[in-house]
């Protein structure tokens, strides 16, 4: 009961601060958003100084002048080999270094040389491979990307570019700010270089710092020396003139430039205004996607009459659907798609970011003919976007596709692919806030066996700890955690415990004590360790942006986390970070991170760094041999490399079930393949029908975990009416049967970056009916899934995409022809899933208690023929948990059915894995006549005739026990 008391207090807090939408900023409550959004189109003060244009191999450089302020910007254009144009804009002579996001781009992308095609007074035209030209126009400054005379994307076409230069503050307010911040600022003097203006200029500032230097703890100085990566420059000497010039031209202060207050929270802004913004027009496009995370439609809406889409990692209590509010994660990456091409735009900035979207087609009703007039008829559709961030630089990647898969792999070439998860991680997870004690865990585990429902992982939420001190155990409820994990692991299962980024400020708590000693916590704007309120009460936050802090934290998993075993994995929650008493329930923007960067600069990447460090901890723990598994709530571009994410605290209602599809699709196309939504909904109690339908949907989504709030009723499958339990069991078993297929899809995604759960247009890019589809999706290129997401549904309206395609109901083998909407009657048991004619799916149809127990089980291949009676598919096999696949201990094979032959061949000749598994069954669907004989010719086995049965109703043949080895090449011939 005592924890209820605590919870009550917290719940009160949560209710007070979070249900209310007003606790989160609207654009006009965010000074830079308001300022930037107010820029009037068509009046850009920027002029390209074409005489400065120079090409150095793959980099073209150019200065751009702000004719109002006199500030000069340095612009770089990189032509990347992967068909990407990178555009970087920074101040030519910034007062101090501006934040450039590190650790996202996986390696310096290889550049391709620019060729200058044309150069005159008004324009410069440069070319890269694939007939791509980039045209820079002097005045008004704009950049256009053209491929074979088709204008694809225009930059600053609306003249919304803005780049607030770092400046000195006028007037006497500065002194006050200095008093508060001088210790930190001077302690990091080499970092900040020059922080606050004074009328005497920066010389006096340096003197001032020298004067107070003895106050600085020796450690800070030492650290200073160690810091070398991504450190803001020291003061730029010889830059006085430019700075003075700026000073003269500087506009008068607007409110919110040097400090800002939201509710009771004051944001000190020692650096003053530093926002950057730019507009991009996607020419000939109607549909844009991505920029997760928002609880909104998959095809993004125009924001003409709403706030812009906001990207700012926040813990939003009981989030609302269908609005552009920020949520837990942020990937500033957008895709545009039309029947001819798919392109991407990646805005690499970790600060608070807003994206405005308008469309001449979607907004036509609003602007009517006026818009057409301006655009000259408006026959060509166009999506205009305006991106702006609070700090940092403009660093944009334009991914030119042109196919969806090319865009996926281009994005992966920048930020990496989803790492191959261990097999258990893509199996079924059972979670709840909370399984109360060891007996509770054992009983949940036992009930899965009792009801013969497979499960791989049992999770423990915050209550398992000793007073919310992560990496400890409540000694009364969990006196023998190792024994408990061993018992769970004896059946091949795993466990997960939660580790949040906030650590209780308790000197007797080993993590806090050591973290404080090492100085690894985020600091306040005035220098002390940041102190905020979260689950344990007063807490501090590890500064995961600091490589040393990450390394130290990771090392805790090796030998400091008592009661953990190799079968224990980790869940990082609240890592936006959530701060109960902070502005917008997060940390103050003026909190100071490693190297003196403000949270303002690094906010959106913080959570990713934590997941990165946790994954590193898992790897370290196994001596580098085992794959990690970490679930995170916050995410950023690149998070796919470190584990799974989920859509946070959703609600047990039908609309949230529906919303899981567009949300996961948006996250998927933004590179994060391993994502899921809490099955059943986190808040509130789902009725049995909803919970059952949710299981059915999530069994076909990448990350499959049931979770529930502390206040909800127990809802483990066996607690539902028998009929519902049986349906849920069947859904989970379907997931397990398809694990070889899922695992293969994750492997393929790790190669090419394509999402595993993907929009229909990824496979049928020219089928316009699919552009807004968000009630069905594909898994890989083989399965079409249309989950039932409404109460009491008697039928669903399934769209079968693609010209001349055939789709087979996976249960009945009933066929459907492409480009058709079909009303499919559904029963409670029915999950509308269809196999694409032309695909081959590997399955393991034997039910097991968990995934690892089916390691040696035989496979079934389901061959679904297309109109040409052919099909193909892949299978990837490895040990399912280690890094041995990197030593080529894997099999990656293709199955091709053509001309009445099914052939198994290696795709990757390097791979070799000795599996015990054979093929026990091959099903070929779509055969109009029964074969007379079927025989197999194997690499290491004599030709043998195979038994089969033909079903003339379903037009399918089942080949019995070919018993072919997976590692062998073989051919099966149907005559």
């Amino acid at each position, binding site marked *: 009961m005592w924890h209820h008391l605590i919870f*009550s207090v917290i719940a009160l807090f949560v209710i007070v601060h979070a249900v209310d939408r007003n606790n989160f900023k609207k654009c006009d409550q965010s000074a830079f958003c308001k300022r930037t959004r107010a820029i009037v189109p068509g009046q850009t003060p920027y002029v390209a100084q074409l005489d400065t244009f120079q090409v150095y191999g793959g980099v073209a450089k150019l200065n751009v002048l702000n004719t109002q302020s006199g500030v000069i910007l340095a612009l770089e254009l990189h032509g990347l080999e992967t068909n990407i144009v990178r555009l970087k804009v920074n101040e030519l002579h910034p007062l101090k270094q501006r934040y450039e996001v590190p650790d996202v781009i996986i390696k310096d992308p290889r550049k391709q040389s620019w060729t200058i095609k044309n150069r005159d007074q008004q324009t410069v035209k440069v070319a890269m491979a694939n007939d791509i030209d980039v045209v820079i126009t002097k005045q008004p400054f704009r950049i256009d990307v053209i491929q074979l005379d088709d204008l694809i994307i225009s930059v600053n076409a609306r003249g919304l570019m803005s780049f607030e230069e770092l400046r000195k503050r006028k007037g006497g307010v500065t002194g006050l700010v200095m008093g508060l911040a001088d210790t930190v600022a001077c302690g990091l003097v080499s970092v900040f270089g020059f922080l606050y203006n004074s009328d005497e200029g920066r010389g006096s500032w340096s003197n001032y710092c020298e004067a107070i230097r003895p106050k600085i703890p020796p450690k800070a100085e030492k650290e200073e020396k160690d810091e070398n990566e991504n450190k803001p420059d020291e003061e730029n000497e010889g830059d006085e003139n430019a700075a003075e010039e700026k000073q003269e031209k500087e506009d008068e202060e607007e409110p919110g430039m040097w400090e800002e207050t939201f509710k009771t929270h004051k944001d000190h802004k020692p650096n003053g205004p530093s926002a950057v913004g730019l507009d991009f027009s996607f020419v000939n496009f109607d549909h844009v996607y991505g920029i997760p995370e928002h609880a909104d439609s998959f095809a993004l809406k125009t924001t003409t009459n709403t706030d812009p889409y906001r990207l700012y990692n926040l813990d939003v209590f009981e989030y609302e659907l269908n609005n552009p509010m920020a949520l837990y994660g942020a990937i500033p990456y957008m895709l545009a798609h039309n029947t001819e091409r798919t392109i991407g735009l990646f805005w690499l900035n970790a600060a608070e970011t807003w994206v405005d979207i308008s469309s001449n087609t979607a907004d036509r009703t609003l602007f009517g003919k006026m818009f057409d007039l301006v655009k000259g008829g408006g026959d060509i559709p166009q999506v205009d976007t305006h991106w702006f961030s609070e700090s940092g630089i403009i660093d944009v990647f334009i991914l030119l596709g042109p196919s969806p898969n090319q865009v996926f792999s281009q994005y992966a070439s920048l930020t990496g692919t989803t790492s191959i998860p261990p097999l258990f991680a893509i199996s079924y997870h059972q979670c709840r806030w909370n399984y109360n004690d060891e007996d509770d865990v054992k009983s949940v585990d036992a009930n899965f066996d009792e009801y013969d429902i497979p499960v791989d992982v049992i999770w423990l939420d915050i209550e398992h700890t000793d007073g919310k001190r992560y990496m400890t155990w409540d000694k009364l409820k969990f006196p023998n955690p190792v024994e408990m994990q061993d018992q769970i692991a004896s059946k091949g299962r795993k466990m997960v415990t939660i580790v949040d980024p906030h650590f209780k400020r308790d000197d007797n708590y080993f993590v806090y004590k050591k973290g404080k000693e090492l100085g690894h916590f985020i600091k306040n704007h005035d220098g002390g360790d940041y102190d905020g309120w979260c689950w344990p009460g007063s807490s501090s936050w590890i500064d995961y942006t600091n490589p040393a802090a990450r390394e130290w934290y990771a090392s805790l998993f090796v030998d400091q986390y008592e009661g953990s075993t190799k079968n224990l994995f980790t869940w990082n929650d609240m890592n936006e970070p959530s701060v109960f008493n902070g502005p917008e329930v997060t940390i103050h923007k003026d909190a100071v991170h490693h190297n003196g960067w403000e949270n303002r600069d690094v906010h959106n990447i913080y959570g990713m760094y934590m997941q990165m460090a946790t994954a590193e901890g898992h790897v370290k723990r196994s001596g580098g041999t085992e794959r990690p598994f970490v679930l995170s709530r916050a995410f950023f571009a690149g998070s796919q490399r470190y584990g799974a994410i989920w859509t946070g605290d959703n609600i047990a209602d039908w609309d949230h079930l529906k919303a899981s599809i567009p949300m996961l699709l948006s996250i998927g196309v933004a590179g994060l393949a391993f994502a899921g939504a809490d099955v059943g909904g986190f808040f509130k109690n789902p009725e049995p029908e909803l919970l059952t339908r949710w299981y059915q949907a999530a069994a076909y989504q990448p990350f499959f975990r049931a979770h529930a709030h502390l*206040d909800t009723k*127990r809802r483990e499958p066996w607690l539902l009416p028998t009929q519902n339990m049986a349906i849920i069991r069947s859904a989970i*078993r379907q997931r397990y049967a398809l694990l070889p297929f899922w695992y293969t899809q994750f492997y393929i995604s790790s190669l090419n970056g394509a999402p595993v759960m993907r929009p229909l247009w990824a496979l049928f890019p020219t089928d316009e009916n699919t552009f807004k589809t968000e009630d069905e999706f594909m898994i890989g290129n083989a399965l079409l899934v249309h989950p039932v997401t409404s109460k009491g549904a008697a039928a669903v309206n399934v769209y079968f995409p693609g010209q001349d395609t055939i789709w087979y109901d996976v249960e009945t083998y009933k066929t459907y022809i492409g480009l058709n909407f079909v009303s499919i009657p559904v029963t409670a048991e029915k999950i509308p899933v269809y196999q694409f004619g032309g695909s081959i799916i590997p399955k393991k149809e034997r039910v097991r*208690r968990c995934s690892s*127990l089916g390691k040696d089980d035989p496979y079934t291949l389901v061959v679904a023929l297309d109109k040409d009676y052919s099909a193909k598919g892949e299978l990837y096999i490895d040990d399912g948990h280690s890094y041995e696949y990197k030593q080529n201990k894997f099999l990656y094979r293709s199955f091709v059915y053509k001309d009445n032959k099914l052939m198994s061949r290696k795709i990757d000749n390097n791979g070799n894995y000795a599996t015990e598994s054979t093929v*026990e069954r091959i099903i070929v669907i779509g055969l109009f006549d029964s074969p007379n004989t079927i025989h197999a010719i194997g690499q290491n086995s004599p030709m043998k005739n195979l038994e089969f049965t033909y079903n003339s109703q379903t037009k399918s043949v089942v080949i019995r026990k070919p018993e072919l080895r997976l590692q062998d090449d073989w051919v099966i011939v149907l005559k």
Partner: protein
Amino acid sequence: MKTYPTSVSVLPLCFLIIFQCSCCDGTRLRGVSISKESFYSDSSWFTCIDGSGKIPFSKVNDDYCDCKDSSDEPGTSACPNGKFHCTNAGHRPKYIPSSWVNDGICDCCDATDENKGSTQCVNTCKELGKADRENRHREALLQNEGFDIRLSYIVTGQTKRKEREEQLQHLKVELQSAEQLKEDKEAIKIRAEEPEKKSKEEHENKWKEEVKIRKKELERETATTAFDQLDANNDSILTSEEIMKVQGFDTDHDGAVSQEEAMNILGQDQVDKESFITRLWTDGGFKIIFSELNKQNEKHDGEDIEATDLPPPPDVASTQHPVNDEDVDDYEDYDEDEDEHDHEAHEDEDLRKSQEIKDAVRRNKERRKKMEQDEEGEMPDWNEDTKKLIEVADNARLEYDEANKKYNDINNQISTLEKLQTKDFGPDQEFAILQDQCFEYTDREYTYKLCPFDKSTQRPKNGGTETSLGTWGEWDGPPDDKYSLMKYTRGKGCWNGPDRSTNVKMTCGKENAVLSATEPERCVYQFEFTTPALCKTQISINENEPLHPEHTEL
């Protein structure tokens, strides 16, 4: 639902199998139980048990699922919903799901479920069987002990119920006579109260009349006293000149009582004694003035009053006095009279006069006090006739009250008993014994208390108040096992949550005891409770033997 039998209820079947098998040749098909053996007896063809297909016998247990009902693969994991039978010689045989076969985990103690791959299982049936039999033996003994206790519970419960029934019958008869008696006594009471009331009223009216007359006399006396005081020359005529001498009548605060003011007060130039007493005393407001003087004196009682302060002007008074309705009324009246006295500036004569008035008032007050006392408490005793009537009525009332109380008592007893009779103490009244008992269980933080058929509570171990976790609701087990679960509902409301409730899982045990108390979901508590009342079956210990493994070997 359980998919394979494990519970005690299948024991007889198990023993049957063992008995039959002891004579067989031991070549039974892998994974098949003896009861199903006949399905697999044909050596050339196998018909799926549900009749859905027919396959060559060579395809049975060939690690490929041919039958829809999974019956062709009893010994492999090939079929999705099959059952594998472990003989478990030396221990109890059991079914496991086919999915547990050859998955690398040893589930059967005879190790037969793992015959492929690298997993080496060891036959542990002998040890497990021995331990299990000993365990079951112990349990059977306990169960039987519980069974015996249960029989005694039944006897107790049924006896109690019967006693209650008899008591009820008895009480119902009693109730009838008690009701009759109550009605009779009520009639007598009514009859006795009528003359009593009449006689009392007569007596009281007479007294009221007397009081009225005395009051009038007193009033006249008071008026006379007042007149005598004002009538300075004792000529029985009160003139305006005499009024003018009393400073208190200075209504316009000019320091003197003018002719006009005096005229206004008297209504004429002069007034004789009789007119003053009968008319001016009440109508002219003198009575009020003097009653005000009374009040002043009361206030100063016990103090050494230097002078008679007439009340201050109303505007001052209203801010100084605690305001109650009576006061306000008085002042309003006073205000109308425009009466004013400012004594301090007066000459000696005035002083003397005032002292006289003061004395008179004091005397008057004493009289009045006495009279009031007479009025309130000093009514003469009832006369003898009335006294007699009262005595009779008192007796009648007493007797009625007694009869009524008895009637109500019986009625309450009946409804309590009836409530108990409708309470579900089990089909054989075996749970009745738990009524009026409480059982406690203490964990690391709390002491939980279960009072069956009454309530469930929790209180912190180290002091603090008791929290209700629910009051008796109903039996809530599944239809075939209703008495396996007690439900207590509508406990103390949870903050931002539901009312607390408790589910009590009941099992057979030798003693009545709470074995555990948990809170699997917020504010829903779960107790485990053992009671002999649920030991419904008696196990023949002989049948439960043998404890020697050779009897079970096949």
